[in-house]
C-alpha cells in the first residue's frame, strides 16, 4: 500500500487504523507514510476508511489556519478526507502478504477467504476430524502483532520432526517446499503477514504431547499464538474425550465454535469424493 503524497493532508486518521502501526506522519515531508517493511498489505486502511474526495490544497490551508489559532477541530476518525491511498500491483513474493492479511482475498490454494481454512466448521461434510482424532489450529500473529514466515517455520519444523501430518488444504502447507520437514519456501521467509494458521491432525492420545511441544517452541517464536483444538462429538452430541485432557493441562475452556452437524453433501457425486486419508502417527 502506498499513500499519494500529493493527496495526503496529514490528518493522521490512518495512523490509528493500521493494525500493524505501520503508518506514521513523516516530519520531513509532512505526509502520512507507510513503513513498507512492517506493512502486511491487509488493506484495512484502504477498505476500512471511508473516502472523501476533498481538494487537498483547501484542506491543508484550513488545517494550517486552525493550527495557527490553536483551534481544536474534530474530524470523523474513520475517514480519509482526500482518498489518498494508492493500492499497488503487488508482485511475488510481496503479494503473499496480502493473501495472508486481507481477509477478503481468497487463498488460491484453498479458495477460502479469511485465513483460508475450514477446520472443523465443515467437519460434518468433510469428515476431516473423526472420533479418536484431534485437529489443531495453531495461529500466529493475531491479534495485532503479525508474524514473519521464518518465525512460523520454527513451529512447522518442530511439528514435522514430531511426525505429525499437516492439513493438505491449508495455505501454509501449500507454501512448503518439503512437507516432510515442514520447510517453507525460501523466497517468502522475509515476508511479514497479519496472521496464519498451521493445521495438523493427530490421534487423540497425542494431544498432550503436541500441546507441550507447541508450548516449548512458542518460547522461541517472536509473536503471539492462538491455539484451537477441534474434536468430533459422539452420537449424542457429547465431547468427553479431548475437553478433559485440555482441562488437565490447565486450560480453562471458555469459548468454542460448535458445528451443529446440519451440513449435507449436495454437490454432484463426482465432485464430492472424500479426500484420501492422511497418514497420522
Amino acid at each position, binding site marked *: 500500500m502506498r499513500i499519494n503524497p500529493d493527496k495526503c493532508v496529514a490528518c493522521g486518521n490512518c*495512523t*490509528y*487504523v493500521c493494525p500493524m*502501526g505501520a503508518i506514521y506522519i513523516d516530519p520531513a515531508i509532512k505526509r502520512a507514510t507507510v513503513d513498507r517493511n512492517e506493512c502486511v498489505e491487509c488493506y*484495512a486502511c484502504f*477498505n*476500512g476508511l*471511508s473516502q472523501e474526495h476533498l481538494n487537498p490544497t483547501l484542506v491543508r490551508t484550513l488545517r494550517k489556519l486552525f493550527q495557527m489559532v490553536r483551534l481544536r477541530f*474534530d474530524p*470523523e476518525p474513520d475517514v480519509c478526507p482526500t482518498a489518498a491511498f494508492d493500492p499497488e500491483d503487488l508482485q511475488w513474493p510481496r503479494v503473499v502478504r496480502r493473501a495472508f492479511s*486481507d*481477509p477478503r482475498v481468497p487463498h488460491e490454494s484453498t479458495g477460502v477467504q*479469511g485465513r483460508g481454512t475450514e*477446520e*472443523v*466448521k*465443515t*467437519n*460434518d*461434510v*468433510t469428515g476431516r476430524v473423526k472420533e479418536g482424532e484431534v485437529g489443531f*489450529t495453531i495461529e500466529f500473529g*493475531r*491479534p*495485532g*502483532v503479525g508474524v514473519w514466515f521464518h518465525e512460523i517455520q520454527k513451529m512447522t519444523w518442530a511439528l514435522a520432526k514430531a511426525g505429525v501430518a499437516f492439513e493438505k488444504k491449508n495455505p501454509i502447507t501449500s507454501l512448503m517446499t518439503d512437507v516432510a520437514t515442514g520447510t517453507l519456501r525460501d523466497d517468502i521467509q522475509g515476508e511479514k503477514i497479519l496472521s496464519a494458521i498451521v493445521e495438523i491432525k493427530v490421534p487423540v492420545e497425542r494431544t498432550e504431547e503436541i500441546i507441550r511441544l*507447541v508450548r516449548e517452541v*512458542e518460547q522461541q517464536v517472536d*509473536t*503471539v*499464538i*492462538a*491455539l*484451537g*483444538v477441534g*474434536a*468430533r*462429538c459422539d452420537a449424542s*452430541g457429547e465431547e468427553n474425550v*479431548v*475437553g478433559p485432557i*485440555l482441562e488437565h493441562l490447565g*486450560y480453562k*475452556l*471458555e*469459548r*468454542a*465454535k*460448535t*458445528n*451443529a452437524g*446440519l*451440513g*449435507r*453433501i*449436495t*454437490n*454432484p457425486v463426482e*465432485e*464430492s469424493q472424500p479426500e484420501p486419508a492422511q497418514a497420522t502417527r
Partner: protein
Amino acid sequence: MTNTLHRFGDAASFYDDYVIFAIPSRGKNEKGSIPKLKKFLEMALPFKPVNLGDAIHGGALRPSRNMHPTAHWKRDMEPDFRAVIEGVDTPTTVAAVFDNRVAAEDFLTTVRQADLGLCINVSTSIDGAEQCCHAAGIPRHSVGYSLGFQGKTEKLPNSQVLTLTTMCGHGMISTSLAKKMIDWVKEGRRTPEQAVTYMARFCSCGVYNPSRAKRILEDARTKIK
C-alpha cells in the same frame, strides 16, 4: 471461522455474544449455495440480529467509497441488513450475530427446520452453544475449543482493548483505534454508539458485535483495566 473463535473474555462475558454462521464447503456443498446463504440471512431478521455479514462484502455497517462532506453531520449509523443479504453473490461464509441466547436458540431452531444443507456453526461460550443446540434439538457434531493466547503475550494490549479488537478476528480493528475510541468515549467526544460504529466498519466479514462492544465501552468509561 477461526475469527470468531478466539474472542477475548471468560465464558460469562459471552452472555450477549452469539455468532451463528453458515459455510459451504468447497467440493462438498457450495454448488447452488448462494440462494441458501441469502435465505439463512433472511431467516435471521425476525430474531433481531445485531449484525449480519458475508466474508467478502462485509457487515451491516460499511465504509463509504464516496463520502459527501456534509455526511459528517448526518452520518448513517444504522446497520443495513438488506444490503448484506442482497450483496451475497459468491459462495462464502455468512453470519448472523445475536446479543441474547433466546434469539440464537430460536434462530438455530428455524435453521434446522429449513434444512439448507449448509454447514452451520455456533460460536459463543461452550455452554451457550450447547444450550442452543439442545434447544434446537440438535446433537453437536464437532467442537473447536479456543485455548486462548499464548507465546509472547506481553505484546498484547490490556483486556478492554483486547475485548474490542478480537471481535474482528481477522485483525482489521487495530489496537490503536480501539484505544482511541475508549479515550474519546471517556472524554465525551463520542458516544459509545458512535465509537462502536466507527470500529464495526473495519470488520470485513460482519461478525463484529456492536451490542457487546457498546457494553465494553460503557464499562471502560469508568473502569481502567
